[in-house]
């Protein structure tokens, strides 16, 4: 295999990589110029479709296909919403792109809007990224000054405005329709689909919601072609029609107990172990890895024996995880208690459930209260089966809840207990050897000790 050349992060080591001057000096906006001069929107959609680009936000839906769901010949307006609300614990790849190479992101937004004929794009940016806000706004200002944005971009008949819209610290705003509701000025309660956003999205108009890294990939597909994109990654499995392949470069976020946490670009299909050892410098303090989250906290856990799982769209699903998710790998070393991990996870989802659907609102709280009780030494062995039952009840898509948050909350529960049941049983037997029933209310406890 030839040496992999980073594309999405190619500029970030350069000084002032966030400025237009640096971006243009490395070929920035050449894709936009080429597309505006040579292509019509359907051709660009076709190009992205043929690249098999799948959304990088977590669900992995084919991007070009999503664009074709927009109604044909709609009088408009059509809106583009860029999802920059990444809040999945462990995930920060969008932040790196927005802080270090905002023009790459903006060029991707412009190209995506050109393809979908959107005339207004909103970048929904999470509150916690003030530097991204500053750099994106500065980059947008530079773009308006250079004629890349506004009316009749570069002399074409294509016009576009991009606005930044700040969230207010809520995980659910990263959900496609929660984001739309929030953008409209309401509480971020996800919508029942259909209608799908492509038909009726923000302001009741056709809308595409794309992730930051996804639109960054569009730039390079426009620049280098679909064949280049498909030369990277893992091909489709001919024996499995449900595996359309995992193509292109991917930003992997590596954090937790590794020597060198960071955001690394690698071809889709790299294994978790390669990522930890070759990029992350191995597990810290010379310890052994115990488990890893393959793609954000909602994906479940890989045990150490499963570290050779390829991190492509199909890989984690083959070992009982929900999927690749955001490709944010969090490593847990051998000293971490899985009970602590699961408590942390349940606490997160309980806090971030929007409360609209009963199974999620009640289920996440119930799971958290049980974990708090177990941690406080009042767990009973039968609690484990009950937790699994909660996991199975709240996390069935489609059906019980409007959005996927409940499913995301359920997978760490199901995974941790199935893969580390002995550890839970040992903990309960050790801390509550006589199996006493609950005798007092349990207060919130600190989690995971520092090592």
């Amino acid at each position, binding site marked *: 295999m030839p040496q992999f050349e980073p594309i999405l992060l190619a500029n970030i080591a350069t000084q002032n990589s966030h400025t237009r001057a640096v971006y243009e000096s490395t070929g920035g906006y050449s894709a936009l110029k080429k597309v505006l001069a040579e292509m019509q929107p359907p051709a660009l959609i076709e190009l992205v479709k043929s690249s098999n680009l799948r959304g990088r936000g977590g669900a992995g839906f084919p991007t070009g296909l999503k664009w074709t769901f927009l109604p044909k010949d709609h009088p408009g*307006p059509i809106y583009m919403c860029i999802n920059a609300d*990444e*809040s*999945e*614990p*462990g*995930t*920060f790849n*969008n*932040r790196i792109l927005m802080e270090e190479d905002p023009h790459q992101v903006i060029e991707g937004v412009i190209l995506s809007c050109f393809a979908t004929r959107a005339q207004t794009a909103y970048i929904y940016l*999470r*509150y*916690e*990224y*003030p*530097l991204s806000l*500053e750099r994106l706004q500065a980059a947008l200002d530079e773009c308006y000054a250079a004629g890349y944005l506004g009316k009749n971009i570069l002399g074409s008949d294509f016009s576009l*405005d991009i*606005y930044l*819209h*700040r*969230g*207010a*610290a*809520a*995980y659910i705003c990263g959900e496609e329709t929660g984001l739309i509701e*929030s*953008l*409209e*000025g*309401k*509480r971020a309660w996800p919508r029942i689909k259909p209608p799908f956003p492509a038909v009726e999205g923000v*302001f009741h108009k056709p809308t595409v919601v794309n992730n930051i890294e996804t639109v960054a990939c569009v730039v390079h597909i426009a620049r280098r072609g679909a064949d280049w994109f498909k030369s990277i990654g893992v091909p489709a499995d001919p024996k499995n029609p449900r595996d359309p392949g995992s193509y292109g470069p991917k930003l992997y*976020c*590596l*954090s*937790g*107990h590794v020597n060198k*946490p*960071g*955001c690394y670009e690698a071809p889709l299909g790299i294994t978790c172990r390669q990522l930890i050892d070759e990029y992350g410098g191995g597990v810290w303090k010379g310890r052994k890895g115990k488990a890893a*989250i393959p793609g954000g*906290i909602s994906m479940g856990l890989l045990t150490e024996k499963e570290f050779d799982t390829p991190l492509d769209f199909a890989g984690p699903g083959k070992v009982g995880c929900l999927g690749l998710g955001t490709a*944010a790998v*969090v490593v*847990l070393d051998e000293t*971490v208690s899985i009970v*602590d*991990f699961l408590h*942390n*996870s349940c606490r*997160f989802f309980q*806090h*971030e459930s*929007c409360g609209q659907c009963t199974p999620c609102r009640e289920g996440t709280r119930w799971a958290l209260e049980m974990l708090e009780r177990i941690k406080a030494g009042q767990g009973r062995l039968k609690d484990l089966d009950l937790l699994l039952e909660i996991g199975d009840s709240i996390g069935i898509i489609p059906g019980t809840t409007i959005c996927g948050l409940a499913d995301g909350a359920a997978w760490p529960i199901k995974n941790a207990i199935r893969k580390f049941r002995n550890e839970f049983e040992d903990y309960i037997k050790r801390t509550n050897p006589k199996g006493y029933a609950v005798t007092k209310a349990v207060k919130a406890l*600190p*989690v*995971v*000790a*520092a090592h």
Partner: protein
Amino acid sequence: MATPERILTDEMVEAIKALFPRYPTRQAVTLPALHIVNERLRYVPIPAVVEIARLLGLAPAEVQDTLSFYGFFKQDAPHGRTRAWVCRSISCALRGGEQVLDHMCHTLGVKPGETTSDGRVTLEFGECLGACDFAPCMLAGKTLYKDLTPERADQILQTFE
């Protein structure tokens, strides 16, 4: 009847109105308007909600409904001169984030969500600040503090005005 005292300054009203052309509905300006008021007053009291609603052509209940969902906006009293979010999610927790938060609670004598009695600091827990490469971390104002330890948190606290 006396004219009720206005909370929103002319500058805030202008800043909010300047956003109208960006959106096809006035309601979409709700979050930006709440941010504008929250940034300047450090909270969004009920009378401000009423004024924002009037500006946007909404019922106050609609603005209040949105505000209360996010939990980000303070309403009873302004947050401290510095608002500090300490991350407690998994990557930070694995590297001691919870201990840093506990330590800061102890040092400041507050619980997460509370403000010190001198109005200097409001301490909050954050659900993943998206800076897991620098865990454990804290966002205070616009500054991200990286690779925290309890000792370093003490030093940082001293720099807050």
